[in-house]
C-alpha cells in the first residue's frame, strides 16, 4: 500500500468517524449526568432532516445547522421531561424518540418536498463544503508531512474540525470546570450533589441541552456536510454504533475519539477490502468483509478492553423525597 493510499484510507476514516464522534460526545454528556440515551439515532435523524430541509429552503447551511440544533435539542428536552421530571423509563423514552424521528421526518419531508421524505439535493454553497487550511499550496511541495497536511488535515468541512475540537473541549469541561465536576457527580451520586445544594434536575437539563446541540451537529454533518440531502432513515444505525463507541471508551472523551477513529478506520478499510482474494481461499465472501468491523470490535472488546464501569447512577430517575 502506498503512502498516498494510506493517507486516503485515514482521510476516509476521519470522515466516517465524525458523526460517531459527535453523537458519542452527545451521549457522553447525557450519560455522565446519569441519563441513558438510546435515542441518539433519532435525534441525529431529526437533526439531519431539519438541516437539509432548512438549507434547501433558505439556501444557507448555517440556518440548516441552527435548525438541526433546534430540532435535536427539542427532542432532547422531551427526553429530559420524560426521564427527569416524570421519572420515566429512559430506555423507552429513547426508543420512542427514535420512532418519532423516523415517522416525522418522512411525513414532513413528503408534505414539504413531495419526494417521500427525500429533500432536494443541495449545491456545494448550500452546505458545508471543504475548507482549505492555510499554506496548503506551500505544503503540497513538502514530502511526507506536506502530503499529510494537504490530504489528511486540510480539506474537511467545518463540522469535522468542530468535532475534533469538541474532544479536548469536552475533556476540559468535564475535568476542569465547575459544570463538569457537577456533571460527573450527578451521574455517580446525585444524592451527594443534592446535599451539596445543587439541583440535580436542573443540572441534568443542562447536560441534555448539550446532548441536543451535539446531536444536532452530528445530524447536520450527515445531511449538509458529508451528505447533500436527507434520505429517510439515513442515520442507518450510526446512533447505536456511537452508543457502543461511548461504552467502549468507558465514557471518556479521549477514549471516545480513539474508538470512533477505530470504527471509522475499520469501516473504510472494509470498503477497500471488498473483493479481496486470499491465496488458497479465493475471493473472500463480501459479507465476511462487511462484518469484519463488527467482529473485530467484539474481539477487541473481549480481548483488550477491560470491563466498562458505567456511571453508577445511570438509568435511574433521581427521586427527591420531600
Amino acid at each position, binding site marked *: 500500500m502506498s503512502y498516498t493510499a494510506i493517507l486516503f484510507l485515514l482521510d476516509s476514516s476521519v470522515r466516517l468517524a465524525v458523526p460517531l464522534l459527535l453523537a458519542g460526545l452527545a451521549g457522553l454528556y447525557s450519560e455522565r449526568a446519569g441519563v441513558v440515551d438510546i435515542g441518539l439515532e433519532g435525534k441525529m435523524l431529526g437533526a439531519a432532516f431539519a438541516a437539509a430541509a432548512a438549507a434547501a429552503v433558505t439556501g444557507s447551511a448555517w440556518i440548516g445547522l441552527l435548525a438541526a440544533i433546534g430540532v435535536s435539542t427539542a427532542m432532547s428536552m422531551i427526553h429530559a421531561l420524560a426521564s427527569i421530571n416524570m421519572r420515566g423509563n*429512559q430506555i423507552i423514552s429513547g426508543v420512542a424518540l427514535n*420512532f418519532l424521528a423516523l415517522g416525522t421526518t418522512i411525513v414532513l419531508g413528503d408534505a414539504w418536498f413531495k419526494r417521500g421524505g427525500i429533500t432536494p439535493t443541495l449545491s456545494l454553497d448550500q452546505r458545508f463544503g471543504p475548507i482549505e487550511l492555510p499554506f496548503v499550496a506551500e505544503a503540497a511541495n513538502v514530502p511526507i508531512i506536506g502530503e499529510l497536511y494537504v490530504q489528511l488535515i486540510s480539506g474537511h468541512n467545518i463540522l469535522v474540525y468542530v468535532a475534533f475540537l469538541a474532544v479536548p473541549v469536552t475533556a476540559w469541561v468535564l475535568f476542569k470546570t465547575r459544570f463538569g465536576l457537577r456533571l460527573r457527580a450527578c451521574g455517580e451520586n446525585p444524592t451527594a450533589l443534592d446535599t451539596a445544594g445543587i439541583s440535580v434536575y436542573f443540572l441534568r437539563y443542562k447536560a441534555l441541552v448539550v446532548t441536543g446541540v451535539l446531536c444536532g451537529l452530528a445530524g447536520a454533518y450527515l445531511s449538509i456536510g458529508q451528505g447533500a440531502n436527507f434520505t429517510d432513515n439515513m442515520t442507518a444505525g450510526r446512533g447505536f454504533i456511537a452508543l457502543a463507541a461511548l461504552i467502549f471508551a468507558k465514557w471518556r472523551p479521549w477514549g471516545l475519539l480513539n474508538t470512533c477513529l477505530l470504527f471509522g478506520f475499520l469501516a473504510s478499510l472494509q470498503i477497500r477490502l471488498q473483493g479481496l482474494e486470499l491465496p488458497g481461499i479465493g475471493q473472500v465472501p463480501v459479507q465476511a468483509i462487511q462484518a469484519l468491523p463488527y467482529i473485530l470490535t467484539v474481539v477487541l472488546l473481549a480481548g483488550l478492553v477491560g470491563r466498562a464501569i458505567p456511571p453508577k447512577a445511570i438509568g435511574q430517575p433521581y427521586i427527591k423525597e420531600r
Partner: protein
Amino acid sequence: MSARTELPRWVTLALMPALNVALAFVIGGLVVLAIGESPLEAIQILMFGAFGYGEGWGFTLHFATNFVFTGLAVALAYQAGLFNIGVEGQAYVAGLALVAGLAVDQIHWSVVLITTTLVAMALGAIWAAIPGYLQAKRGSHIVITTIMFNFIAAAFMSYMLTQVFSRPGANSETETLDAIGRLPLLREFMPFFGRSPVNITIFLAIAALIGVYYLIWHTKLGFKIRVLGQNPNAARYAGISAVSIIIITMALSGALAGMVAVNEAVGVQKRLIIGYVGGYGFVGIAVAFMGRSHPVGVLLAALLFGALFQGGQELNFEMPSVSSDLVVIIQALVILFTGAMSEMFRPALERLFIRAKPPPEKAVAPAPPANQPKSSGEQGSGQ
C-alpha cells in the same frame, strides 16, 4: 407538603395506563387534524381495523404474537439485569430454521412445527449466548456486543440467503414450504379470523408467556435470575454463579427471540427472505419496558402494538392521506406517553385521591399531619 400516597392498585394498573393511551391518541389526533382529516374518524377506523371484525382481530393477534416473543426476550434478559438489544439479530439468524423445515417438509406440518421450533430456539439461543458468554467471562458490555451481533447477523444472513440457500433464479430467498408442511392457520378451524395470517404459533406464544411467568416467579432459576438482576453483590454472596446465570438467561432470551422465525417465516411467509424480521426486535424493547418486564404487561403491550400495526395499516388504506409513516408517528406517541411518561398523571391523581379520602386517623397532634390511609395496593405498581 406532598407526602407520597400509595394509590389504589386499580388506579396504577388500569386508570393511569388508560389515561396515557388516551393522551397519546389525543396528540396523535392533533397530527391527523393537522393533515386535514378527522381524528375521530381516524380513531374509529383504527379501532375497527384492529378489533372490529374477525380478520382484523386475526392480524392484530398475529402481530401481537411476534411482539410477545420479542418483548419476552427483552424482558427476561432484563430480569437478570441484561439489556438485550440484539433480539432483532437473534430472530433473524433463527430464520434459518426454515431451511430445517424444508428438510422435513414432506412429512407433516406437525413435524415441521416441532423441527423449526427447536432449531429456531437453538439458533436464537446461540446467537444470544455468545454475547452472554462474552459479558460473563470477558466483561464485554452486553449492549455493545448485542448491537454488533445485529450487524453481524445481517451480514451472515445476507451470505446465507444469497450464496448458500438461495433458490436459483430467485432473489435471495429460500424455497417455499410445501402445502403439506405449512402450519395451520387459525382460520382453518375458526372461520372468524377471515383471511388473517394468525396461526398455531400463537399457542406457543401463550405458552411462552405462562412459561416465562412461571420461570421467573416460581422456579429456583428464576429466583437466581432476579437476584442477579437486582443485586449482583447479593448474588455473589448467595453463591449464585453470575457466569452461568448470564449465559443461561441470554440463551433463553435468544430462544424466545428465535420464535419469531416460527411465527413469521415458517407460519406466514413460508420461506426465508432477506431482512424478514423487519424491526419486530426493536419494537420488542418498547414492548418489554412498557410491560415493565412482566409477562402480563408484555402481553398487554404486545396487544397494543399488534392493534397499532393492524389498525394503522387499515388507516393507511382507508385514509390515503394518512401514510404508513404517520402511523409510525402515532406509534411513537403511544410509546412515549404510555411508556416513558407513564407516571405523568400520578401527582394529579395522588392529589385527587388525597382530597377524596381524608385521613381517618385520630387527630392527636394539634397540627394534623398528612397521614395517608394505608391503601390496598401496598406493593405499588410492581418493579
